[in-house]
């Protein structure tokens, strides 16, 4: 059913093509492991952008906290990765002692190894289940979901909408990152969790191979997320979401429980972000509070806006283009421009370019890069209407009156 939609088909086909080409090139040694990792990570970011598009582009909730859910997923999986790797090391060391290790000794030794960096050796309660992969995997999805549920319930119930909700989500994100920055929070403070690229049990597999496995996993997850998102926005559910975006009050008058719809989207997208994070951070190797800082979530919105919100492939294109371009420009890949009196170094000027292009896209190309597709196909997408008035709607109508 979904598969028959041309945009979905094209998307899945291109995704498969990119993944296969990357694999073949990597096998042939033509692209480096770091590029494969970059690609895999970008695909994970695309999942987060998809989620952001669902919640903002389709439902009109500008959440400035979705990247925090992404980070939570990373933390959840990171805890297991660190714990298990450390446990292997520790039991190996303890096995050399004449006495067989007691459970307390093992736990203490793991605690010292993991938390020695932050000057502690006790295992915080947060780490109670860190030894179990299935539980931590579940937490990677459930914890963001639960937090989104509670936060969303509180916010939507008291009808916090528009920019107020944005600011509230941003404040919540700031609170979370400040909390994580503390050494006492039990998640290793500013250092975060590191060495995540070493997967326990797969020590014999080289990073070159692992990176491909993760690329495939990320591609599969993106494909799944895309189908899920497509399914969500098609049909009646999707229509209600767009209705909420365009005129929330009217949808409410039609008898829909607007809050339930918003809450459902908010929670599901948070879980999606958690899943993406759980795939992303083993590739990045380290997760720390800076990842969760409010600016990261704003960038997520930037990607979606540049890619073109209100259409799923737009979000994916935006995330991919901006994060790859960012990596190219800051990596010194772009040549300096010599103006004679001044040399533009892209490491210095890339952020200026990004910021300004973002303003320009908002002003002159609200459909973003996805709009280029319209030019090409020569038709206006059915799903892309006006971007949705929010608080200002009432006033603009007054003005017209």
């Amino acid at each position: 059913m979904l598969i028959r939609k041309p945009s979905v088909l094209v998307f899945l086909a291109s995704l498969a093509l990119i993944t296969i080409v990357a694999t073949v090139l990597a096998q042939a040694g033509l692209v480096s492991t770091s590029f494969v990792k970059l690609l895999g990570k970008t695909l994970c970011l695309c999942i987060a952008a998809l989620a952001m598009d669902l919640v903002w582009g389709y439902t009109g909730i500008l959440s400035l906290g979705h990247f925090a859910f992404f980070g939570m997923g990373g933390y959840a999986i990171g805890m297991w990765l660190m714990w298990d790797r450390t446990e292997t090391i520790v039991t190996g060391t303890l096995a050399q002692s004449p006495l067989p290790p007691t459970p307390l000794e093992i736990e203490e030794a793991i605690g010292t190894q993991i938390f020695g960096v932050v000057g502690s050796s006790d295992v915080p309660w947060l780490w109670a289940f860190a030894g179990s992969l299935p539980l931590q995997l579940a937490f990677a999805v459930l914890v963001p979901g639960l937090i989104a549920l509670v936060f969303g319930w509180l916010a939507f119930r008291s009808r916090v909408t528009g920019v107020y909700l944005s600011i509230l989500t941003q404040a919540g994100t700031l609170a979370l990152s400040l909390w994580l920055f503390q050494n006492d929070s039990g998640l290793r403070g500013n250092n975060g969790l590191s060495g995540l690229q070493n997967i326990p049990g797969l020590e014999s597999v080289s990073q070159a191979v692992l990176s491909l496995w993760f690329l495939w996993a990320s591609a599969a997850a993106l494909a799944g997320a895309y189908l899920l998102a497509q399914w969500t926005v098609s049909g009646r559910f999707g229509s209600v979401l767009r209705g909420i975006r365009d005129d929330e009050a009217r949808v409410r008058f039609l008898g829909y429980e607007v809050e339930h719809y918003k809450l459902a989207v908010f929670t599901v997208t948070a879980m999606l972000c958690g899943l993406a994070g759980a795939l992303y951070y083993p590739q990045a190797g380290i997760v720390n509070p800076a990842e969760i800082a409010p600016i990261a979530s704003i960038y997520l919105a930037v990607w979606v806006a540049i890619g073109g919100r209100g259409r799923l492939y737009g979000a994916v294109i935006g995330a991919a283009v901006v994060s790859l371009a960012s990596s190219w420009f800051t990596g010194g890949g772009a040549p300096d421009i010599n103006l004679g009196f001044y040399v533009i170094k892209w490491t210095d000027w890339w952020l200026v370019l990004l910021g300004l292009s973002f303003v320009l896209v908002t002003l002159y190309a609200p459909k973003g890069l996805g709009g280029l597709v319209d030019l090409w196909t020569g038709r206006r997408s059915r799903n892309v209407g006006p971007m949705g008035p929010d608080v200002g709607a009432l006033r603009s109508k007054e003005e017209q009156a």
Partner: protein
Amino acid sequence: MTRTPLLTAALALATAPALADCPVKVGVLHSLSGTMAISETTLKDTVEMLVDQQNAAGGLLGCEIEAVVVDPASDWPLFAEKARELLTVEEVDVIFGSWTSVSRKSALPVLEELNGLMFYPVQYEGEESSKNVFYTGAAPNQQAIPAVDYFLEELGVERFALLGTDYVYPRTTNNILESYLKSKGIAEEDIFVNYTPFGHSDWATIVGDVVELSEDGRQVGVISTINGDANIGFYKELAAAEVSADDIPVVAFSVGEEELSGLDTTDLVGHLAAWNYFQSAESEANEEFVAAWKERMGEDRVTNDPMEAHYIGFNMWVNAVTAAETTDVDAVREAMYGQEFPNLTGGTAVMLPNHHLAKPVLIGEITEDGQFDIISQTSEVPGDAWTDHLPESAVLTSDWPGLGCGMYNTETETCVQIQSNY
């Protein structure tokens, strides 16, 4: 699907010794944008200057040296990514890089996986000794402990305020100091600890708390591990509260010439900093170094401790490569042990088997022109990877050439782990 060809290809890539094929490539892994650019850009310029100087002196192994600069943008995961890029794509022979501990910990797994070589130039909290990193900055026993000794012995301080930014270096350093102070007979209630966020600006209450500490008539001293910009607000508040260095001396471990250039230092005269290098050190090598730096970067630029660390590290590496007649990492590492190079402050730095340097410790008083008056200089102190002042690490030692282990338990006489704990 079989991936064996890929595996071997990657392994070959990773382990192929870089046999002095020209040019010799030096990777520079310092943030040029983001929050850490403030400190790290200077180090990038330092390495570039050292590379140019070496090229002017005839290069290395008959090759030109080329600096490959990348920008990890103060984004910690990017340090891992860029390190991998430097080692596999650019195939550099050595990396000079990192400032924060977290960025080093981020790059470590990659360095160990690909058997790279990195020189890390910043004072840090210790508790680490990787086979693939040479730590040219100070370990706690080369900065914090001597400074505290100075407080205890020369200033007669009996109550301590340990103020720090909330991250790993201050936390660990303060832990070490707390336990050291207790061993020196300072009671727990005489140690006040406070942590503030990065870039903190509201210091009135904290300064007030510190002043209150002197209420029982004993001498109070502040040990500051406050990082970066936050120092500006802190010192401004100290000056505003008219806390003179004679009343409550402050010794800082993260404030150098570079940080002071953002401040009017008239009210800070007499407060202290502990480093292994000050620009005001009187030696001919230092005068040449400072002059070369100013000529390259501008008259108003200053030199600082991590720059000297790179200066020593780079020259030692050059000498080690020359001695080994190859840039191959394993050969260079072997040649590094015992390398000696004159410090800019006088005396000689020696590379120890635990990958740390033996360097003198200097204590300086801030002067009106934003420099430091060196009032105390020890002989060379060997850097200690694992501190003697925490029970868990007191039993650990690091000796790569001798024991082949960076985390060796001397009690059980076993190697805890070959790789580092990240």
